[in-house]
């Protein structure tokens, strides 16, 4: 059984590890050897120097980090609130979960149609008091991620905020625990692990995604992914190397954040 177990797992784990590991190595090779040639040719790290010394890259890193932090924290907080409201309403839960199935690009299209200049909200109000699409602060991007990720995190929270947690909360209430105490000592321990793991997935996605910034984001500052995309669109081979270096920085940050988060909930997995 043990051998069969590993063999069965390897059938799926190996292709993922080989393809994903190969992709990271491929990106590393492109970043260090811009010119086509043998796999193990002369190393040229100038693309890394160019990227790390580029003020536009630093702007993109800061902008992407800020978008990721704001989108993830707001999504997590709102998801806990939404789960509290929806936990006994399965019909509304089904409707509320619809954005989880909607592709990110489509959510960005909806934001452009509703919130863009001349969009439906603009027409209904006469004029939208704030710019929300292609704004420099990236609030349009944040709104699209909230539309997509709050329902996703709410579903994860609801997966553990079920009847068993409710029973414990009720017992705590009988013993005199207030609403805040029940949330802190009964509900939070139950929802912590799925919420944190879901938030890591959300943060990693926001950090690396570029279809949403392409549709509703500002032209400057770029996000890390749009910075990399712009680099690939230059005619020179150095552009590909710079794009790969920028994307590897983003991948490193995402994986680093995931390792820290996993360490935090290791015992609960």
């Amino acid at each position, binding site marked *: 059984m043990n051998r069969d177990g590993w063999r069965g797992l390897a059938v799926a784990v190996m292709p993922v590890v080989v393809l994903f590991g190969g992709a990271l190595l491929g990106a590393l090779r492109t970043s260090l050897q811009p010119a086509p040639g043998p796999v193990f040719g002369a190393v040229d790290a100038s693309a890394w120097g160019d990227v790390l010394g580029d003020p536009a890259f630093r702007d993109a890193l800061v902008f992407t980090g800020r978008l990721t932090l704001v989108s993830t924290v707001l999504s997590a907080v709102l998801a806990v609130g939404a789960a509290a409201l929806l936990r006994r309403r399965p019909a509304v839960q089904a409707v509320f979960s619809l954005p989880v199935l*909607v592709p990110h690009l489509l959510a960005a299209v909806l934001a452009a149609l509703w919130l863009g200049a001349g969009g439906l909200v603009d027409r209904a109000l006469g004029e939208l008091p704030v710019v929300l699409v292609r704004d420099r602060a990236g609030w349009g991007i944040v709104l699209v991620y909230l539309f997509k990720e709050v329902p996703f995190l709410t579903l994860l929270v609801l997966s553990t905020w079920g009847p068993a947690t409710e029973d414990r909360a009720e017992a705590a209430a009988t013993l005199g625990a207030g609403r805040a105490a029940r949330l802190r000592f009964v509900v939070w321990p139950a929802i912590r692990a799925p919420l944190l793991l879901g938030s890591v997935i959300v943060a990693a996605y926001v950090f690396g995604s570029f279809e949403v910034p392409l549709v509703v984001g500002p032209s400057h500052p770029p996000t890390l992914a749009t910075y990399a995309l712009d680099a690939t669109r230059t005619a020179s081979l150095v552009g590909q190397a710079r794009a790969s270096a920028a*994307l590897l920085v983003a991948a490193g940050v995402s994986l680093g954040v995931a390792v820290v988060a996993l360490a935090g909930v290791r015992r609960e997995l």
Partner: protein
Amino acid sequence: MSSDLATTAPARRRWAARLLGLLAAAPLVVLPVRALAETWRAPSLLPQTFSTRGFAVLVASGTRAAEAVTNSLLVALVTVLVALVLGWPAARSLAAAPRGRRLVATVLLALPLLVSPFATGVGLTEWFIRLGLTDTIAGLALAHLVYVLPYVVLLLAPGFSHGVDDLEEAAAVLGAPPARRLALVVAPAVAPTLAAALLLGFLVSWSQYGTSLAVGAGIPMLPLVLLPFIGRDPQVAAALSLVFLVPALAALAATVRRER
């Protein structure tokens, strides 16, 4: 006074829950209207003229949009089929694995989900160029598999953890050969989980933008063709968006039907 509070607080929560549902679903209503609106000048809240031009682009043969729908469908189907063949034994093993092994396998499978698909696509392109896989359906399916396979395995595994092995063993004791056990015992037992895993796997491939752009930029795919229309021709963009939405709506309908 206290009874007023008791009746108004639940009512307020009920209305707040309904508002949340409305906020999640209402934005989608604009799509069919925009897809049929030939002229919709500001500041009017309603379109001036209607036409089916947006959908005509989709059904006209030889256009990039029509080709993109076909390619996206083909790649998603191939990817999900491969993911099912590889994911089925892995999901069974994952469900039966001890905690430590399950954790290691889950982390390894989930790693790609933490990295930008564009980064994965750019890295794969380095090798796919040498293997002649760039700008091919096979190359796109392989790149999408990096993201589809983890979802299929991780969603399918819980379906095998509810006594399916015991049921299969009972069928074997009664003399059922492997093919009959699969068709009559195992497949029906995991059918709801299997449907959810395949639908989500299809959706993940269907909506891939980053990997498709990096690996198959020469092949029209639905998300790649849709994006330029958003600024240039919102009517066509909305019509393409509706097509883009069809698998999601099918998944929702299947979920609601299953829960009934």
